[in-house]
């Protein structure tokens, strides 16, 4: 009886702790969503008034009309989808080659590429900026890459550097290397070349690693702020994160509109998180890395 009581008491304590932290984690979401539904005058009500007393969903329409949000969402979607699709292809085929094919210098090339994992993206932004600015015959540049803005303010600058990644290749290679060699030998006897081997045998087996990579890359691309901040200056090239930051500067006191925009920018990833939760968790656990 005493033991039972003690157990119940620790259980109570355990749930109290868990619920306390869950509330702490979720309060900012509640503040954002409820604020986004308040008419402006309610923002100034005194006391703790978390809930809107007179909900105003029209805030969302107003927020979306206050800036070129359609364009920002289009930009972010295009950049994210392009980079995810192409990088999955490039990374997986490279990872497969490093794991299953035999060619001279393979391991050296692989380890040489791993240097990329150690490089913080912000540390090489200056040469990347100069490079894109100096693309010949683009953006008003002459043949020597002078005089104009090159590929700055274009999708090229937002997409090109993210079409492959050392970490993704590393992950794919570690995945493919665990398959038994008999798998390759059987296929080779049937006359499969390297590309056929990849497309027919390995690609259909790649579900888990590609799902993990796709999620990491989608979150990274959609949420990236620093890169578009440097590479774009015009309104029509802004991504949603950049749009949100500029919006925050212009509508500093219209917290209801700002929260409405914030909720809409965040929503796609939250929805994806709830639907693909299992892969999210598996992804970050097996990779133990983000981006």
């Amino acid at each position: 009886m005493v033991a039972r009581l003690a157990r119940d008491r620790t259980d109570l304590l355990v749930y109290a702790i868990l619920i306390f932290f869950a509330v702490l984690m979720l309060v900012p979401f509640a503040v954002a969503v409820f604020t986004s539904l308040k008419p402006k005058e309610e923002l100034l009500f005194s006391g703790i008034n978390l809930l809107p007393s007179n909900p105003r969903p029209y805030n969302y329409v107003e927020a979306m009309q206050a800036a070129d949000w359609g364009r920002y969402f289009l930009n972010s979607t295009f950049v994210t989808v392009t980079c995810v699709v192409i990088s999955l292809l490039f990374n997986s085929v490279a990872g497969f080659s490093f794991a299953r094919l035999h060619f001279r210098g393979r391991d050296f090339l692989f380890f040489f590429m791993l240097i990329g994992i150690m490089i913080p993206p912000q540390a090489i932004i200056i040469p990347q900026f100069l490079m894109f600015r100096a693309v010949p015959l683009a953006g008003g540049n002459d043949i020597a890459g002078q005089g104009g803005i090159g590929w700055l303010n274009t999708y090229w600058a937002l997409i090109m550097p993210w079409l492959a990644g050392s970490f993704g290749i590393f992950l794919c290679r570690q995945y493919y290397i665990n398959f038994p060699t008999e798998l390759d030998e059987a296929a080779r006897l049937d006359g499969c070349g390297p590309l056929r081997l990849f497309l027919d045998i390995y690609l259909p087996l790649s579900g888990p690693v590609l799902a993990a990579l796709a999620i990491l890359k989608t979150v990274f691309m959609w949420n990236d702020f620093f890169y578009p901040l440097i590479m774009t200056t015009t309104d029509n090239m802004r991504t949603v994160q950049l749009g949100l930051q500029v919006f925050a500067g212009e509508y500093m006191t219209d917290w209801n509109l700002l929260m409405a925009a914030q909720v809409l920018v965040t929503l796609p990833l939250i929805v994806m998180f709830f639907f693909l939760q299992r892969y999210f968790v598996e992804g970050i656990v097996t990779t133990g890395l983000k981006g």
Partner: protein
Amino acid sequence: MAIAAKRARRGAEPGRLRRWLGPDASGYLLIAPAYVTYVIFILAPVFAVGVLSLTSYRLVGTWEWIGLDNFTSMWNDHNYISALKNTAVYAFFTLMPSLSLGLVLAAVLTRQIRGLSFFRQSYYLPNVVSTVAAAVTWLWIFDPGNGFLNRILGAVGLPRPDWLYDPNTALPALIVVGVWKMLGYNMVIYLAALQGIPREIYEAARVDGAKEREAFWHITIPLVQPTTFFLLIMGFINGFQVFDQIYVMTSGGPANATTTLVHQIYLNAFFFHHLGYASAESVFLMIVVAFVTLANFRYGQQGKLMEVS
């Protein structure tokens, strides 16, 4: 490049070349798209930033080689010293609570808990939100006049700080946001590590009369030590690269109280156009991060992953 040249030179004898390249010479073509992207957009800029750091290059006008002058002036630049201090404080104080709380929460969640997935989701959710979106939300929560936090503090009769507008509270406020974002990530990784510990160990300890708290100190903590090491390294690397949050919430202010290493790079490069100097700052950041990552590869789990292969 070298391969193409060799192929042209030895074109007359494809048999020998093929043998030299190995049985799957088409492997070069298959790694080419990823490799070219890597060389052009990562590797070349790494070298370029090193070269730029030795110059007085600005976006316009003349420039010259100035050796290591940029590096020496970094240490006399009080903005940079503030940035270094702020970054270290931010990284350390974001890491410690999010690591220890992450482990405790994960340990609690390994008990027979109802609603496990609800709790796991709630803790992880902040990690899905972009830093900009999180920053905008917390900007409102920390608002001195009408923000949620000061409304609560006011209701219970506590003083209402100016938070982001006060040099003494700005950095702590940013750290709160950092912990809020990182906690769930650390918790999920710890949870996976804990699920790998056989239950028998705990049962044996209980039979020997160990209390739950003792088991946590003497079994759990030592056994998840590799995970702790990994999270420490990752958290340190992330903390050292903090920028988005700073840019949106404080712009490094008030009075430089929240400027960070990457914020200094940004300001010097894209605001003052001292690209040479900002490159030196980038090189320093790169060296710090590379050093820490190497430690992870050498002593951490990923190092083991490589050995297995």
